[in-house]
């Protein structure tokens, strides 16, 4: 699916960027991050649809790195490498189960060290990653699986969900390289971000906008009957 970025599409992107509660929350709490995210959204949109010039691409990386740095500085998950009292109890209980069931396979230095120091940290890194890969987090404030101890807030209006889904499929089908690379980098950064970070997983904001806009463009084209060779 190819098309030119017209003013009309830019306006559509602008409408999506400002037509959600998330950006207003970000702008209110941290103006700098808000502005950087808006610029990043435009740059990413151009990168996904056409290809930006070298300077713009460099700017995209620079902004991405800046936002990553700021968010990690404030929202780094300090609990990743520290076990709470509750986690230690669970660890000890499980230590008992493994000893009984696995015997020598468990009672060796590597297994014991892995169980004591690494298993919980890996679990938490995975948790941080997958909590961000949840459409419900963005459209329904994580409903129906609200997380305990996390102040969930609505990010996008839920009626945009169908456009997001269409956009996601289009991205997987046609624009998998730029969106995929952005997605991988964002995911890697977000695994170190506390799930309860007050602005949410902000690096996903540009990607979400682009997927919704892609879905909107596709849907509008269908409505206008100008699909032009698109097959799903």
């Amino acid at each position, binding site marked *: 699916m190819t098309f030119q970025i017209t003013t009309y599409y830019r306006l559509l992107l602008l409408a999506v960027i400002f037509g959600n509660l998330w950006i207003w929350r970000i702008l209110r709490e941290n103006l700098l991050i808000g502005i950087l995210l808006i610029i990043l959204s435009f740059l990413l949109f151009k990168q996904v649809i056409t290809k930006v010039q070298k300077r713009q691409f460099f700017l995209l990386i620079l902004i991405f790195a800046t936002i990553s740095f700021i968010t990690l500085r404030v929202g780094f998950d300090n609990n990743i490498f520290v076990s709470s009292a509750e986690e230690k109890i669970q660890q000890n209980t499980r230590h008992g189960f493994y000893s009984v069931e696995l015997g020598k396979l468990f009672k060796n230095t590597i297994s014991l060290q892995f169980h004591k120091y690494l298993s919980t940290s890996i679990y938490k890194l995975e948790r941080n990653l997958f909590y961000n890969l*949840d459409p419900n987090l963005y459209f329904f404030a994580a409903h129906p699986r609200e997380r305990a101890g996390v102040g969930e807030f609505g990010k996008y209006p839920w009626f945009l969900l169908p456009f997001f889904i269409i956009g996601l499929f289009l991205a997987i089908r046609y624009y998998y390289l730029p969106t995929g690379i952005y997605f991988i980098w964002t995911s890697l950064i977000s695994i170190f971000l506390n799930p309860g970070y007050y602005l949410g997983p902000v690096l996903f904001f540009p990607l979400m906008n682009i997927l919704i806009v892609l879905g909107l463009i596709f849907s509008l084209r269908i409505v206008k009957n100008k699909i032009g060779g698109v097959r799903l």
Partner: protein
Amino acid sequence: MSIREIIILALVLALSLLVRLYQLDTIPFGLNIDEASMGYNAYSLLETGKDRYGQAFPVIFRSFGSFQAPLYTYLTIPAVLLLGANIFAVHLVSALSGFIVVCATFLISYLGLKKNFKLAILISMVVGFAPWSILFTRFGTEASLGLAFSVLGIALFILSLNKIYFFLPASFFLGIATHAYYSERIISVIFFIGFNFLFFKKLHQYKKWLILGTIIFIVTLLPHLIIIESGAFTRRLEQVNYFSEETFLQQGENLRYFPLGRFLYIVREFSSQYIAYFSPRNLFFDADPQSARSIPDLSVFYSWMVIPFFIGIHYLFKNSTLPLIKVLIFTVLISPIPAALTRDAFYTLRTLLLLWSFCFIIAFGIYNLLNKISYLYLKLGLSLIIIIYSAVSLYISYFILFKYERAENFGNSYIKLLEFIEQNRNYQGKKFVIDNSREPSVGIRIAYLKKYDPAKLQQTLGPNVRDRYYSTLEFEEVYSLDNIEARPISWKEDPSKQLILIGDSLAISDQQIIDHRLKLEFEIKNLSGQVNLRGYSTSPTQRE
């Protein structure tokens, strides 16, 4: 297929059967409320031709204020006949259903993907060894049987595109699936209509077969008509849906002040529930919120599968002209519908067909990823690492953690208690009252494992529901099984009788022990070694 391929297929099938039968009677070590109910009803039908309420061969089985789809219970009868009334017999139908699903999956994928053996075997492996598949086919649940019939139906429907006579058994199996599990009542009907619509051009050429198949499908649905007005047919949905005015007023938030607010609330709720079944968070990390339906530290798929899942979607759309892919996309779209109509978050048991469809997508992704690697040893090494990692994760999470941490979801302590009472001579002839305030299945579980005479139980439970079997919803039942009674402890009357009262620390508090001069007789520990149940003898003489 070459001999080498046949050997590989046999190995995969044998291993998938083995992983389902290995320690089937001890992991999970016990029976949950539904299993106990189905097991005893099967035993009762075998012995008397009636269920525990004295109803002869019901269309649907009443059980603790709800109703169970009948097929699992009926298929458990031969298992109980051959193996006796034990845990293994109740789990067996589910395990065999899981094995049938793996076999049918190979058939579908081999024939539907241009006889690509490698891809077909990969799909079968993902279906055979995915955590959800192991979990739900190792305990007795109607959902696994529903899946088996649905998958058989889908396999035959795909075959019918080449040989139309398969349309008849396909319609039969899909119709029968509606008697296996609740979700299939909705999915089967939509699938039947959708399949005919998707392949209308092809099927239209064989009108006679089409009409005959439709008749067969409708005939299999007829038993539902018997109960359609009784309340039993829709009872489960009424218990779990969010359509009521009351729910809207409680949870409708701002929509309460909107015109068409209730309609918008239902649309919003449905969307959020529906999309939750596609969420990578739920599929690859955060398991089903109910501990009885989840494996510790493992969701329905292994977390690494998120990568092939996304790649698999790319492959799916690239090959969307293949009939199997069309059927898969359609199945993926329709199978979360029944679960999305309920308010339970990510209720995996209701969407087994969706999880089964996702296995194809994940396998497509793995296949494409491996194909991208040209260096053979790297490909083999990577495959080996992934297989070992998955096997270790599964063993640790299911065969160790699930065994210990989920034992109480299957009433393990009560089973130990029964063994203790039966084996300990000191307690022969004594009367026991087991508190069932928080565990209503205590009575039926003990009745099943004790092989309590169904005729006697029918006399106790039957009169309460006579002529109202499908309509009454009361379920406060006292299970009086020779010297064991399962009911809430009555602190007014029980301490003045010579009894042994059994319960957990919530049922019998420290204060009650002092007030009623109870004497500790024994303790029952759970698999983790913690005391779960305590038995106290009463002292009626001292009270006087």
